[in-house]
């Protein structure tokens, strides 16, 4: 470590900074007359400068605002004042103005003023642009954020007749030329206003309001409607996929108001929380060029007009009450109660869509039971916790929690044409659930340096739907319960070694109802339905993992050792194993992690620390399929060994970091900070089909078994910063950032032009977002 210290002192960067700055700024150094006084007063700062980023990359600039190559301004300020900082004045008034990242789309501004102990007002503005991709291509015309996208008139259909492409793998040059890049991003602008007022030392009120404005778009998959008649006898191709831009023209108003009282032995807060979400649109429309292959229909008249819904506007109003009461100094009760009412009554998106042939395609030819949902959900929460420390060295805790989501929305029957143009009957199933939890724990100090904790938790869940048309069971697991016991041991061995180890075991017993029917339409109702039958259309014996009986074992342990006053070492690890009791479905899974940290604080303002984190996870799935000589799927079909397959997901993650801080150079004027990290993550899927077709499954024509190329992401990041104190009130900062991302992800394969997509998926050209970016930043910080 010491060797490293010496290296840091003479590294090239620090030398360069040192001499460049000395030559440029030979300003006199002043000193505060009274250093104690200076410490008691805030240091106001204004930072300004510029940075250069070497490469355009949406991924590098995902959240930092640096998505384009070029120069950006650096701007930040932090100014504070008020008589409350002056100890000669009997005033508690303080104010603050601050701003950061002003030159990017991640800017933040704030202002506050307070007469501390009496009132406070604060204002805030926060902006965040989430840059999603800069490689998306589409032939659709329309700006991101719009809700209607059209194809150019000369694009032509994709239907395989009259010289037109057979499928999306063989697009014509005209069609390929219509593709253009649309950069996908969403922007959040959050404005806030808050105020608090203390009526007395016991009674105070607080109101916070924030308005979140969102714009931009995210990509979304779409399936086209089959059966839409086009000129020339053609029709729209069912399930033709276009990836389109889903607008996020949202606004959310959040209001929190609270009145708090506190007394000698009790405190109570009553409040209101309101969240009003508004979406400017209730539908999203686009044109689809994929048509059935039985016609020579050409041109704009061969596009089908499609529509889907967007997120519905909704609101939540919630009343909250929390508080506590001290029976004695060692026996305390705390608890809360909330009641919320969540409604949604946005008009449904249109089901009758005007088409090129002058007629309209009506998805719901038999009409709808309502024009909007009139949805209403009540949420109820209650909690109580009693703690007692009246017995020496023993702390007892007992608690209860209750959470209910009661969906009062009416269930109705909706008849419509599904994407395959067949009549479909869907019944909406408003889901409700109730969770009650009991917990008890005892913490006992065995000795001054040893402590043990024993805990028990009980959780009961009930799930249901009220008034479902036809009276079907809507949930797979109407009830479940889980018992969890835990034991934790802590040891302070000597003054400088802390050790802890813990184990917990949880057993969830889920009652499973194979007669349940999901809202995938499998109700005993008139009209054609898809995949009808028991167990929501899944094989008997299949259980979705959140609703399966499960045993969970968790072990964790860690040690922190302060070797010397300068050196700290920490090692911890954890292992969790989940075992599901399901004939089919997720069988088991585990997660494990190890973290090793070492820190060396070799001087007052100088340190070096390093860490390594390893994480591993595995999930094993067992599922069933048709084929291999078994009959086509029927609702009552049971799975035989010859049609069972398995899939394993294995996640691996390695992260290392090195942080150095070398202060006090050049007589205390220069500080050099280095921050390096390396992260390598992989996710690998492997499928095994042990029955008769195992050989065929591995052939290049099917590839339904074997290993899938892992999803790998490797991120290297280095940041070097030199801060040089030009004079007492001025600091120059020079920073260099290097960041490199290597991605390997099969996701993008089926998105490419030139015969790589499925037959009816329009290519997008989306690519892995590898980048190598160098950033140099120079800024000046003025303190006053």
């Amino acid at each position, binding site marked *: 470590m010491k060797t490293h210290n010496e290296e840091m002192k003479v590294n090239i960067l620090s030398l360069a900074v040192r001499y460049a700055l000395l030559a440029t700024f030979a300003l006199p150094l002043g000193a505060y007359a009274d250093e104690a006084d200076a410490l008691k007063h805030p240091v106001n700062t204004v930072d300004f400068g510029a940075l250069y980023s070497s490469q355009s990359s949406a991924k590098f600039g995902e959240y930092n605002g640096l998505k384009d190559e070029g120069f950006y301004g650096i701007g930040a300020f932090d100014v504070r004042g008020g008589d409350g900082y002056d100890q000669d004045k009997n005033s508690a008034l303080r104010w603050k103005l601050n701003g950061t990242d002003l030159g990017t789309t991640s800017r933040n501004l704030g202002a506050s003023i307070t007469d501390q102990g009496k009132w406070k007002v604060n204002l805030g503005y926060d902006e965040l642009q989430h840059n999603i991709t800069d490689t998306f291509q589409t032939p659709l015309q329309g700006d991101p954020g719009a809700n209607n996208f059209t194809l150019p008139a000369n694009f032509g259909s994709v239907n395989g007749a009259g010289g037109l492409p057979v499928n999306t793998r063989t697009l014509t040059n005209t069609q390929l030329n219509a593709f253009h890049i649309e950069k996908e991003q969403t922007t959040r602008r959050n404005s806030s206003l808050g105020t608090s007022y203390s009526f007395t030392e016991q009674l105070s009120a607080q109101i916070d309001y924030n308005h979140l404005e969102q714009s931009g778009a995210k990509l979304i998959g779409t399936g086209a409607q089959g059966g839409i008649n086009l000129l020339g006898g053609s029709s729209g191709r069912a399930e033709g996929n276009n990836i389109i831009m889903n607008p996020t023209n949202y606004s*959310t108003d959040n209001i929190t108001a609270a009145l708090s009282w506190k007394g000698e032995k009790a405190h109570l807060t009553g409040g209101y929380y309101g969240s009003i979400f508004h979406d400017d649109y209730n539908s999203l429309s686009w044109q689809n060029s994929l048509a059935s292959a039985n016609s020579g229909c050409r041109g704009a008249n061969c596009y089908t007009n499609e529509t889907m819904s967007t997120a519905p506007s909704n609101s939540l109003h919630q009343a909250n009450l929390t508080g506590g009461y001290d029976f004695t100094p060692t026996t305390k009760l705390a608890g809360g109660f909330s009641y919320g009412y969540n409604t949604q009554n946005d008009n449904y998106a249109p089901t009758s869509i005007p088409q090129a042939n002058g007629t309209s395609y009506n998805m719901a030819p038999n009409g709808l039971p309502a024009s909007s949902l009139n949805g209403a959900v009540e949420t109820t929460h209650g909690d109580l916790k009693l703690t007692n420390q009246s017995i020496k060295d023993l702390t007892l*805790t007992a608690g209860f929690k209750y959470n209910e989501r009661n969906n009062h929305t009416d269930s109705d029957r909706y008849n419509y044409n599904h994407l395959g143009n067949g009549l479909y009957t869907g019944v909406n199933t408003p*889901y409700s659930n109730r969770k009650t939890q009991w917990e008890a724990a005892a913490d006992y100090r065995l000795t001054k340096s040893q402590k043990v904790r024993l805990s028990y938790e009980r959780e009961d869940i009930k799930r249901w739907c009220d008034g479902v048309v036809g009276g079907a069971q809507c949930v797979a697991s109407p009830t479940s319960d889980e018992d969890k016991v835990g034991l934790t041991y802590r040891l302070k061995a000597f003054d400088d070694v802390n050790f802890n180890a813990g184990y917990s075991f949880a057993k969830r017993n889920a009652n499973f109802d194979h007669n349940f029917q999901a809202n995938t339409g499998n109700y005993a109702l008139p009209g054609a339905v898809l995949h009808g039958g028991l*167990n929501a259309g899944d094989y008997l014996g299949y259980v979705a993992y959140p609703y399966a009986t499960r045993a969970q074992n968790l072990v964790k342990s860690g040690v922190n050792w302060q070797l010397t006053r300068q050196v700290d070492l*920490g090692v911890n690890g954890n292992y969790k194993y989940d075992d599901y009791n399901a004939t089919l479905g997720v069988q088991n899974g585990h997660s494990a992690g190890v973290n090793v940290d070492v820190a060396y604080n070799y001087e007052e303002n100088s340190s070096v620390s390093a860490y390594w984190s390893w994480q591993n996870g595995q999930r094993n*799935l067992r599922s069933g399929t048709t084929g291999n000589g078994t009959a086509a799927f029927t609702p009552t079909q049971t799975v035989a060994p010859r049609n069972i397959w398995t899939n394993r997901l294995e996640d691996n993650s390695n992260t290392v970091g090195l942080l150095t801080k070398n202060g006090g150079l050049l007589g205390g004027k220069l500080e050099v900070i280095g921050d390096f990290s390396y992260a390598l993550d992989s996710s690998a899927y492997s499928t095994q089909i042990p029955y008769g077709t195992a050989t065929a499954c591995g052939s290049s024509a099917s590839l339904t*078994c074997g290993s899938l190329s892992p999803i790998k992401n490797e991120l290297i990041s280095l940041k070097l910063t030199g801060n040089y104190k030009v004079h007492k009130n001025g600091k120059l900062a020079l920073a260099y950032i290097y960041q490199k991302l290597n991605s390997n992800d099969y996701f993008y394969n089926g998105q490419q032009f030139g015969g790589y997509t499925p037959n009816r998926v329009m290519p997008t050209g989306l690519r892995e977002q590898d980048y190598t970016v160098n950033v140099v930043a120079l800024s000046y910080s003025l303190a006053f």
Partner: protein
Amino acid sequence: MLCGLLIGSAYAENTPAPAAKSAPVGKASDALDKDSECTRCHDENEKKPILAIYQTPHGNKADSRTPSCQSCHGDSAKHISSKTNAPDVLFGTKKGAFPMSEVKDQNKSCLTCHEKDPKRTHWQGSAHQAADVACSSCHETHAAHDKVRDKKTQPDVCFTCHKDQRAQVKKFSHHPIGEGKVACSDCHNPHGSAGSKLLVKNTVTETCYTCHAEKRGPFLWEHQPVTEDCTNCHTPHGSNITPLLKSRAPFLCQECHDGSHQSGTPVAGNAAGTQGGLTTVPSENFTGRACMNCHSLVHGSNHPAGALLHR
């Protein structure tokens, strides 16, 4: 922790002050008089800027609630009489010149004023309280800039203990935590809460809807696991699979569906398409967005013709 260590060291290295006054804190000048018993030794020469506390709310002496040094550290008469004795209450978790006070004693000092606060209602019996986390493990009371109360620097404080999360926020898909736009405390209340995992709201879904209100609905066609717990599919601290997913379609969907449509069909290298070695036309059921090429409204659909979450 480092703060506590240095504060502890600092107290040990200075000349003891005269005997403490016992007058209660009243006017600003009274409070400062009381502080001066300590600050006459613990002055601007301290390695850690003790006096910077006057820049913080704890140093705004005209607020009648503002503590004096003795309010937190005790009268420390023995320490004042001899610098070889420790103050009554010494904050921190690492050894210094003196052993740190027991965590319960440190926290008791803070909770004297801060316990009856709606944000700390659930402190007693909470995960951090039970794990002997001291207030000073996270807060630097004397520093002008308390890192844990700043969105940009807070995660580093939390990562001191939560090291798995430190690695997870560096994954390919993540909330903008490292970028300083989302703080741990946006979702978690470290002082205890009624929700699981110290969540600020009563449930996981309520917490997520704070920023993602478009997912709240209620929708005409609900997806049951979505209504119960977002973490059935998402892992909020970071994932190798966008957007913050535990797994990818179709495999993710196959953890709950087997039978309808293609959900029971085994998938492997065919998901990688032609470039993955497949010699036949890839299927839209397995490549790219896979199931979500069509069933894209997985959070719920409000379209009257959208029972299958198509539109």
